[in-house]
């Protein structure tokens, strides 16, 4: 068996982003930061997919994270990015802890559509809420870090470094979780729940734990996206947002904790190029890209790097 070099790889990518970021144009720093935000969501989504559960409603927790960050900014004037991300993580995890008691009972299409339904209920609630800016949402103050507001020229870079640091920590923790017996149960649950139960483990508990972790990551991603874009609106909970996360998840594959970030970056690139080339039919280009990913890379981009030995 090859030794797992994921921590070293994570550190190397982090270093490359921090150093390389100094030379990159502002718009690319923005794209990288958004890739971190979306990658965090998909990292969580992949935990569920490993267990055979596809959530079409991760946007719920993404949006909860974003509105938590927005709320902190608007109501308390807290614009510290890392504080916002921590708060987004906590509120999304709390919501998932409660909802998990319901969701963990369902599998397959029921799990998928129930998660979608919950996100749409949340969407409906914020659309109706005047205090939360209704369909327009509201703007957030520029990010600060440890009480310092970076200068205009540096704010994108500073946010990217902070985002990459938080992402590094999250990816490392997710990697560590996947090494624990509980984290490894995912594929077993997907294959054979009866066997898992008869070996003395609770499938429902394992799913609940994965669901909460997935939500926590989505919350962190939502808070990061909120501050990076500087604006939030109910679209963040809309089902098409969830669909984008599933798209990125399929593109990435579940082969590594790094895959979602690569997938999100490629997704961003396809999106940008498609929009540039054909502003009116970019959705069609996205559809073709997804089609190609499914046909040619059924195990995701990561399978290009890690061809699994078949005995």
């Amino acid at each position, binding site marked *: 068996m090859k030794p797992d070099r994921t921590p070293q790889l994570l550190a190397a990518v982090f270093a490359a982003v921090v150093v390389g970021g100094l030379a990159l144009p502002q718009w690319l720093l923005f794209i990288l930061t958004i890739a971190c935000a979306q990658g965090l969501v998909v990292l969580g989504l992949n935990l569920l997919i490993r267990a055979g559960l596809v959530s079409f409603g991760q946007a719920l927790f993404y949006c909860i994270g974003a509105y938590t960050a927005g709320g902190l900014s608007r109501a308390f004037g807290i614009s510290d990015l890392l504080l916002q991300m921590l708060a987004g993580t906590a509120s999304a995890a709390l919501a998932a802890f409660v909802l998990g008691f319901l969701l963990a009972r369902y599998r397959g299409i029921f799990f998928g559509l129930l998660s979608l339904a919950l996100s749409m209920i949340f969407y409906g609630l914020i659309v109706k809420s005047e205090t939360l800016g209704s369909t327009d949402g509201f703007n957030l103050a520029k990010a600060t870090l440890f009480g310092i507001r970076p200068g205009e020229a540096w704010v994108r870079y500073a946010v990217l470094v902070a985002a990459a640091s938080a992402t590094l920590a999250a990816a490392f923790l997710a990697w*560590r*979780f996947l090494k*624990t*017996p*509980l984290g*490894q*149960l995912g*594929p*077993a649950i*997907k*294959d*054979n729940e*009866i*066997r*898992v*139960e*008869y*070996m*003395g*483990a*609770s499938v429902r508990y394992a799913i609940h734990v994965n669901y909460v972790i997935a939500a926590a990551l989505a919350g962190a991603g939502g808070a990061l996206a909120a501050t990076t874009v500087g604006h939030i609106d109910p679209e963040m909970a809309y089902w098409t947002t969830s669909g984008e996360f599933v798209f990125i998840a399929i593109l990435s594959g579940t082969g590594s904790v790094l895959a979602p970030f690569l997938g999100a970056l490629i997704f961003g690139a396809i999106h940008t190029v498609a929009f540039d080339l054909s502003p009116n039919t970019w959705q069609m280009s996205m559809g073709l890209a997804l089609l190609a990913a499914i046909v040619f890379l059924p195990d995701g981009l990561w399978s290009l790097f890690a061809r699994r*030995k078949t*005995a």
Partner: protein
Amino acid sequence: MPAILDAQGLNKTFGAVTAAQGVSAAIERDSVVGLIGTNGAGKTTFINMITGYLKPDSGSIRYEGRDITPLPPRDISRLGICRSFQIPQLYSSLTVRENMLMALGILLHNAGLGGFLALGRPNVPGHDAPAEEVADRILERFGLSAYRDRNAQVLPGGMRKLLDIALTMAAKPRVLLLDEPTSGVSAEEKFGIMELIMHAVKAEGATVIFVEHDMEVVSRFAGRVIAFYDGRIIADGPPEAALRDPEVQRFVVGTLNA
């Protein structure tokens, strides 16, 4: 000898079908019990009730004096009552070795070991080595080493059966329930598989209850035979006596040899 498992007055119906009708049996510690009967006689229902998959309509099951009737399968399995399946229940997308590591991982998890903050490789509870070593050792004992990197899905039938039983025994059960361990296995392999199992059981000291259709296998390995017919126990005793029982001859042995 005191009974390790005591089932009293178990009844179970599925609509119009009676799967268990006043089934009572006390199983002695370290005994090897063969369950025989035609298909639908109630053998698997009996096993399903003991392992918590089915709840009896009435009656009780006690394990070492404790009432386990209301417990779910995972709690019963944690107490040390483990089962294998007539149709092997494997993790089909994982390799043989990964299947075994999964079983051992659950043992670690249930013992609160190998958690998020744990460093190093803790010994698997009940075993004196970390999971990787234990897995290789068990696969070796069950003759599965040559298949360790094969996907469980593409294993030959007999090997699937063995893996299913090896997974069950990884937990070092106190009571081992085997549902037709030799079904779907060629006649020549049957005795080999049973020898392997019994050898492993002897080393660990467990009580065994197995469902079997082959009377030769039953009389060779069982110390006691319980014969089922129509949801009832029609004979219970040493193999020679039970297999000679007229009702057993008529309803069980006769039908099978016909």
